[in-house]
């Protein structure tokens, strides 16, 4: 097995609002190995984006703050690293792409200016080489007319092309880890297929580890090797993608998979998870999923289960009883 490059240990991130401390991420653990694609999946408000911003040190602060745990990059805890250290890591070692390709590029600078910036910051290349490197990057992400594109502005590009540019920017310094936060959510399905294909190709070719954050189980199933399922700020299940989809052991994971309409066959009625995601901090004790769970037991209301298991971990009393 390859080496662990990034490890998140007991990470707790809270937002401090007028209503007090709201825990957005509440003690999560996972690790990323060199060159793998890890999926983090969950619905809105589960804390998956906060996790990625915590890793990058880009939490909007105030109100956001890491209140506990560690983020180990190559063994170094960067959860409270100095800004100057983080600047060296960002873009160079850990890069990120975002959900909205429309707003993530600066509208008043050319593609070339934005693409060469990270390279300029982290490797001091002469101007000539900068330009050829930029062109090379655009070709790598499958964009035609690379030379002309460098002089164009973001609004002249389509959504799919912009997301390719974002990927080119992220890959410009050969990062060890690429965090992709809902990279295809804003795109049409045929464009999504193109982008996922590109990301898988880059992963194979450059051996950059990818953390793919998404709400779309289909995307996870098609692209990732390992999956972390998050619910209300906690990891509820983690394991190999086949284990998760074929034998989901947490009722939430199971419910999610069952409530998606099937493209290949028509079901009479969809399975539903009743109710909706609780507001962060609104459930004080017991399992956070208990109010929506079909298998809820008495102790679920009072005791919070731990995440247990070896390669396939789950946070549910159902399976801990059996074990």
């Amino acid at each position, binding site marked *: 097995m390859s080496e662990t490059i990034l490890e998140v240990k007991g990470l707790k991130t809270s937002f401090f609002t007028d209503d007090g401390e709201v825990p957005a991420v509440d003690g999560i653990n996972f690790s990323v190995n060199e060159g793998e694609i890890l999926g983090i999946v969950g*619905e809105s408000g589960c804390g998956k984006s906060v996790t990625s911003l915590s890793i990058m040190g880009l939490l909007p602060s105030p109100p956001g703050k890491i209140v506990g745990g560690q983020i180990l990059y190559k063994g170094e805890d960067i959860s409270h690293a100095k800004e100057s250290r983080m600047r060296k890591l960002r873009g160079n070692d850990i890069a990120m792409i975002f959900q909205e390709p429309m707003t993530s590029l600066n509208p008043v600078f050319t593609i070339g200016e934005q693409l060469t910036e990270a390279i300029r910051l982290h490797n001091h290349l002469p101007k000539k080489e900068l330009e050829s490197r930029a062109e090379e990057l655009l070709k790598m992400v499958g964009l035609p007319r690379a030379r002309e594109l460098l002089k164009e502005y973001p609004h002249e590009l389509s959504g799919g092309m912009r997301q390719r540019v974002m990927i080119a920017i992220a890959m410009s310094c050969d990062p060890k880890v690429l965090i992709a936060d809902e990279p295809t959510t804003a795109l049409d399905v045929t464009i999504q297929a193109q982008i996922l*294909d590109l990301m898988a190709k880059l992963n194979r070719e450059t051996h950059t580890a990818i953390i793919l954050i998404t709400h779309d189980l289909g995307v996870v199933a098609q692209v990732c090797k390992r999956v972390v399922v998050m619910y209300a700020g906690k990891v509820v299940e983690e394991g190999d993608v086949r284990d998760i989809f074929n034998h989901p052991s947490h009722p939430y994971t199971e419910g999610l998979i069952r409530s*998606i309409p099937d*493209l290949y066959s028509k079901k009479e009625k969809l399975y539903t998870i009743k109710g909706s995601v609780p507001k962060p901090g609104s459930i004080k004790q017991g399992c956070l999923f208990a109010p929506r769970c079909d298998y809820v037991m008495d102790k679920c209301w009072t005791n919070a289960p731990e995440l247990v298991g070896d390669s396939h971990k789950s946070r549910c009393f159902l399976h801990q009883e059996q074990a």
Partner: protein
Amino acid sequence: MSEPLLKVENLKKYYPIKGGIFGKVSETVRAVDGVSFTVNEGETLGIVGESGCGKSTTGRMIMRLIEPTEGSIQFEGKDILNISKSEMRKVRKDVQMIFQDPYASLNPRQTVGSIIEEPMIVHGLGDRKERRERVEELLELVGLSAYHAKRYPHQFSGGQRQRIGIARALAVRPKLIIADEPVSALDVSVQSQVLNLLQDLQKKFNLTYIFIAHDLSVVRHISNRVGVMYLGKIVEISDSESLYDNPKHPYTKALLSAVPIPDPDKTADRIILSGDVPSPAHPPAGCAFHDRCPVAMDICSKEKPVMKEMEDGRLVSCHLYD
């Protein structure tokens, strides 16, 4: 077979783009470019396509929220583009709409009760007391409670707001409901709740739906028949079983293969289309899809394909089947 509830023929919407000092029309955006279909009572017609394909514009033209440039729309045999105002009012009562964004489609300064009551006031249904009772009845019907009537939309979650939107659409007992991306803003677990609700209501009141969406799995789940749109045109339309199990048009095939399946063992061979959807201001000559089509032939760049009926009754617009 009886007369269809809705019959749309050769519907078009062109937007002129003005430029220059004197505002001359420099180009035309063909948002919808000759769309025809029928919808029978009690069925659900799904319309799928990617953003900018004209599916929402089509829906809004049927509501006459957008005036068509050309074509005819017949509802219960009447051409609603050429009827008197009072007749149109009746049609507006029979055709209602559900919107995509559950946050933007409810007036933030109105109570939920008054939102649901408003269509009844506009159409002069019932007195105050009857309307209030109906509001409570509707709230219960969509899975909310009567006491919710006094609250404001911002006090509800996205899924609940979509239920409010559905209650508003049902208030005047319509026959046809046009649902424009009704679940695309919702989380998966909430999405299935709303889809089930829509199906339950359809059975209960014998409703007819036009279900516009970009999510192919959702459309399959809810629709009896499905039309696939590309650049303002319907490229294929048929009953959903045969369309999904055996797509004919190359675009339909590519679209279906692009959907990520939530099953790691089913990694189907993807057809990855190159490039982007062309601008509707400059659609390619001939078949609009030919420049991205993996099986394009010479004729495709020259002649526009016409809609043809296949042996099993499905309609496809592609030169492959000439």
